């Protein structure tokens, strides 16, 4: 455990050192959130309720979704790819720590930094727009649990995508594809209830909703308590499934590494 703690610290410091990456990503996300905020505002001006969402709910959703999406935003596919191309990955494999565990705790450290920064920004915005009314302690606690599990899912997905880099050098494309896929299906852009029938069922069968939509719905109160708990259970199941896939894929992918020299 101590080893992992060291990695977590390392990740945190890394996050602080490379903050320009994070800030750029956050700005892009923030612009998107702001745009959606105004789009919805103009929609709700002449329509009171859209698919069960009112302007009060939507206003909260936009900000909370932004928070969920921004923490743990830093994809590590690019990094993995670079290490594979340069051959540095062998150094990671030689260490007496499982590769995946190392990645996870490093990312957790970085995520801590990102979450902190975003929370301050979004917290202020959220309070100035919505006020503190309607925030309940038990929901906040459930939200934090769910957010943490959501990070687990996101990690699982990123891990699978990063293993793809063992097969292709095009890490930029892989990262972009993963980003677009998660943004669209996790509810980061639109609440999943807006999706039309067929697509909605597809989305519900995918793990992505656990990243943004589940924690968000718990926090803003569109999920009842029972639904919240079920949502959290689904998240946990997905983490398990992704973990198994990760192990299997890793076995296959690590076999294809061929390194140049020592």
């Amino acid at each position: 455990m101590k080893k992992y703690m060291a990695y977590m610290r390392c990740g945190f410091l890394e996050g602080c050192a490379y903050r320009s990456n994070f800030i750029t990503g956050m700005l892009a996300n923030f612009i998107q959130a702001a745009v959606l905020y105004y789009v919805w505002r103009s929609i709700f001006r002449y329509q009171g309720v859209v698919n069960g969402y009112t302007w009060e709910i939507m206003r909260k959703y936009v900000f909370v979704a932004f928070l969920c999406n921004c923490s743990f935003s830093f994809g590590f596919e690019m990094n993995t790819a670079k290490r594979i191309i340069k051959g540095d990955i062998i150094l990671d494999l030689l260490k007496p720590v499982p590769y995946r565990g190392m990645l996870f705790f490093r990312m957790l450290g970085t995520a801590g930094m990102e979450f902190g920064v975003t929370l301050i920004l979004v917290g202020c915005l959220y309070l100035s727009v919505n006020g503190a009314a309607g925030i309940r302690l038990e929901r906040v606690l459930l939200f934090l649990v769910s957010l943490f599990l959501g990070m687990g899912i996101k990690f699982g997905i990123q891990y699978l995508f990063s293993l793809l880099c063992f097969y292709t050098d095009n890490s930029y494309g892989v990262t972009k594809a993963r980003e677009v896929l998660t943004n669209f299906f996790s509810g980061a852009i639109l609440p999943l209830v807006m999706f039309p029938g067929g697509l909605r069922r597809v989305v519900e069968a995918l793990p992505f909703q656990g990243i943004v939509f589940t924690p968000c719905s718990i926090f803003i109160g569109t999920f009842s308590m029972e639904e919240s708990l079920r949502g959290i259970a689904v998240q946990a199941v997905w983490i398990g499934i992704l973990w198994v896939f990760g192990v299997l894929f890793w076995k296959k992918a690590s076999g294809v590494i061929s390194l140049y020299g020592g």
Partner: protein
Amino acid sequence: MYGQIQMQNMKSLAEYRTDFLMMVFFTGFSQVCNLGVLGIIYSNIPEVGGWKLWEILLLYSFLLFSEGCINFFFQGTWKIAEMINLADLDRFLVRPLPVGLQLLTARIDFDGLNKMGIAAAVFALGASHCNIRWSLWKIVCLAVFLVECCVIRVCMIWIASCASFWMEGGKNSLNFFAISIGEMAKYPLIIYPPVLQGIFAYLIPYAFVSYYPVGYLLGKSGMRAGVMVMPAVCAVMTGVAVIVLKRGLGRYESSGN
């Protein structure tokens, strides 16, 4: 000269064929997702700020087209910041060609062609549902608008990248920021509050990239003035871009090799 340099770039790209195919796939995929978002919003409601889905598609296609145009013809603008930091610019300074031309042609990206193709398809789809009364005048307008909006956007990135001349060390993500703001231009300007409009539509002239030209083609009211100003905006942007490069080069101290 421009053509010759770009030909060389193309040859170097031909080396990486699978990468190229993957890029085509990923771009197509992310555009489908972006359009999906629009589709989903509109499956719930009839219009945003008085604009229908098909009209929004036109806005979208203008933005995408100019983006593709940058990627394909002028991808070099993206690399300026990097080149300044790594002192790669030195190589360019000693060559007997205008630095501006060399910078513009530093890279080519076929992804852009793909984007332009998608943009054309989206435009055709949108326009076919919009009952625009096409005349020779409108077609000429369309061509002129497309050129103008590409010029404006290239200049935007150019200026943002050149800011690196003044920033000591560190990364410059202003150009990325300039592109991200494009997200705003996907929707009609009138939904934003005046302050944001002032900054993101006029100070950074995104209003002239999509809102005014498309509005004019659709025959919406109040667009004529905006369209008339467009050439002036282009001229100003180009002027600023040239000045920024000159001043920047004057200030440039290589980080040494």
